[in-house]
């Protein structure tokens, strides 16, 4: 087994909403190994970004409570004072942001922005920094790097800016790289280019990558291991091949079943009933996905759903996966038919 680089233990991130704390990330445990791409998937509001922000310490601590452990090396990042944490983030742990149009400071040149983390983490002279920056720009596929170095963000296209954001993240050779939906804000052709770039960079380094996405195509192409999150919890975790070939949890199966490409045009596209409950409205007892698969009898769920190793290295939450079926597959043989939402 490869070396673990980041270990998350029972992480809980709760937000203060009108005086009460509600967990957006609810007991997540996850280990990232070196040279591994772990994809975190789930629909909007399932806690993916809250998880990334917890790792990077980007939550506003005035209204966020963080519990559990995020272990990097032999330190728990959650207990680290900010000054020490600042020595790690940007250097050992870096992040690629979702929207390149807003992630760059409009008043600083591209060169300055890529060099900035080096100011704090690497002892380099001005010319060394510049050379390293130009090298980084070339690595992320920017050809006229001399010119871009002097330019301001508004002079670049979205795809170019995302390359710059990636260059910033790579500037100090991170051990762990978080990519929070790095292609969501880009148009499709650029998305493919950026994903190719990420894959290429991943092959060159030993960096462990946490890739947050809701694009299952990206997952299939990039990831080694997939974590499926629903309502703040991990519901399934498996190697990418296992997950796509043998999805277990009803939520994973529903997600995969909702992809138009897997669908041969003979029936209606599968739609998951209902919506992701909001933080305040979430029922935290029992299986959280149960309300959206109402045709599965209550006794098939566990009272306190736990993760089970259903197959070697393939974990799934709750026992409902054992008896789960799609109602449209059994029309005729079962009187229950899902209502369309």
């Amino acid at each position, binding site marked *: 087994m490869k070396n673990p680089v980041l270990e998350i233990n029972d992480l809980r991130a709760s937000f203060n909403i009108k005086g009460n704390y509600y967990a957006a990330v609810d007991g997540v445990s996850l280990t990232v190994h070196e040279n591994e791409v772990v994809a975190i998937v789930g629909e909007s509001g399932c806690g993916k970004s809250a998880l990334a922000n917890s790792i*990077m*310490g*980007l939550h506003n601590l005035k209204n966020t409570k963080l519990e559990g452990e995020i272990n990097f090396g032999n330190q728990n990042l959650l207990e680290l004072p*900010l*000054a020490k944490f*600042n*020595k*790690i*983030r*940007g*250097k050992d742990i*870096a*992040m690629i*942001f979702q*929207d390149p149009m*807003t*992630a*760059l*400071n*409009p*008043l*600083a040149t591209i060169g300055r*922005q890529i060099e*900035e*983390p080096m100011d*704090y*983490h690497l002892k380099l002279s001005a010319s060394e920094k510049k050379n390293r920056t130009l090298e980084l720009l070339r690595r992320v596929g920017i050809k006229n790097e001399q010119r871009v170095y002097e330019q*301001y963000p*508004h002079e670049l296209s979205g795809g170019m800016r995302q390359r710059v*954001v990636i260059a*910033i993240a790579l500037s100090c050779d991170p051990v762990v790289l978080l990519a929070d939906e790095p292609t969501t804000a880009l148009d499709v052709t650029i998305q493919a280019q950026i994903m190719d770039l990420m894959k290429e960079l991943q092959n060159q380094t030993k960096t462990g990558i946490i890739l947050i996405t809701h694009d299952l195509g990206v997952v299939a192409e990039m990831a080694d291991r997939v974590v499926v999150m629903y309502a703040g919890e991990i519901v399934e975790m498996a190697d990418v091949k296992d997950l796509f070939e043998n999805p277990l949890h009803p939520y994973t199966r529903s997600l995969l079943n909702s992809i138009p490409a897997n669908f041969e045009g003979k029936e209606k596209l599968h739609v998951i009933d209902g919506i992701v409950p909001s933080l305040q409205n979430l029922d935290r007892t029992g299986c959280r996905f149960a309300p959206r698969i109402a045709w599965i009898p209550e006794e098939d769920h566990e009272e306190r759903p736990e993760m089970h190793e259903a197959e070697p290295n393939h974990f799934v939450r709750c026992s409902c996966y054992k008896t789960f079926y799609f109602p449209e597959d059994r029309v005729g043989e079962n009187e229950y038919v899902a209502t369309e939402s």
Partner: protein
Amino acid sequence: MLQFILRRTLIMIPQIILVSIIVFLLAKAMPGDALTGAFQGNPDVSQEQIQKIREKLGLNDPWYQQYGRWLGNAVQGDFGQSYVHKQPVTHLLAGKVENTLLLSFFTLVVTYIIAIPLGIISGRWTDTWADKIIVTYNYFAFATPVFVFALLMMYLFSFVLGWLPYGSSVDIKLEEGTWDYFVSRAKHLVLPVLSGALIATYSTIQYLRNDIIDQKLKDYVKTARAKGVPEGKVYIRHILRNSLLPIAAFLGMEITLMITGSIFIESIFSYPGLGFLFIQSISTRDYSVVTALVLISSTAVIIGTMLSDIILSIVDPRIRIE
């Protein structure tokens, strides 16, 4: 950049000409003229004589001829005679321009010295006790009319405590160029400057506070934090640079506001500047002086706007015009 400044300066010329026409016509539209003011009701001067003088002075010519003459002279620095003071307007303005510029400059500097740190504290540490105190002060400054505040300051520091003089710009017994003269000038500036500045801070504090609160939630700030930039530097290098943009943009406007807006302060402290002269001239119907002053202040507004544009184009790469 140079080209932009040049072009921006050229645009100013038609603006100033237009303003001067309006100013001239407005002055013409006022009832009566210089002669009515000087000789009306004087039994020794007959209407015919007045008519003759009018003809001689060219006051019966069409407006554009008069305007041409007036502008021609004004460009050469001749704004005509003050009817009240019986001396060239230029003489009247001489020392006063300097006084007003001095007052405005120090008021502006003190305003920023107070407002920028307070705005930063207030914006960075929102909802702390420090922020609450600053916001409260700000509402007071916003709500208090400058003439009320200036009177209070004068009462407190000149009459009750007797620390500072309450009128004029310098002790007239002193000789120009001596150290005592300099000290006296400085002392005479303190109250007018403080009275103006303590009130003028509100817009800068408010702008800065709001903008910092706005900026600190932006994504690029997250990027900076994710780079491991220490919190203090996140503010100085990222948030502040962006938040000072609107302040910089207002600097030019602020300069003109200071020149035109010190009327109250100068009147209350009998400070011999342009504002004080303006009020005096209006109440004595000294039209040639009023016209000259209106022209000067409108030109100041135009120049101030241009300065704002230039400053903004220097600090914000996004609006640099090629």
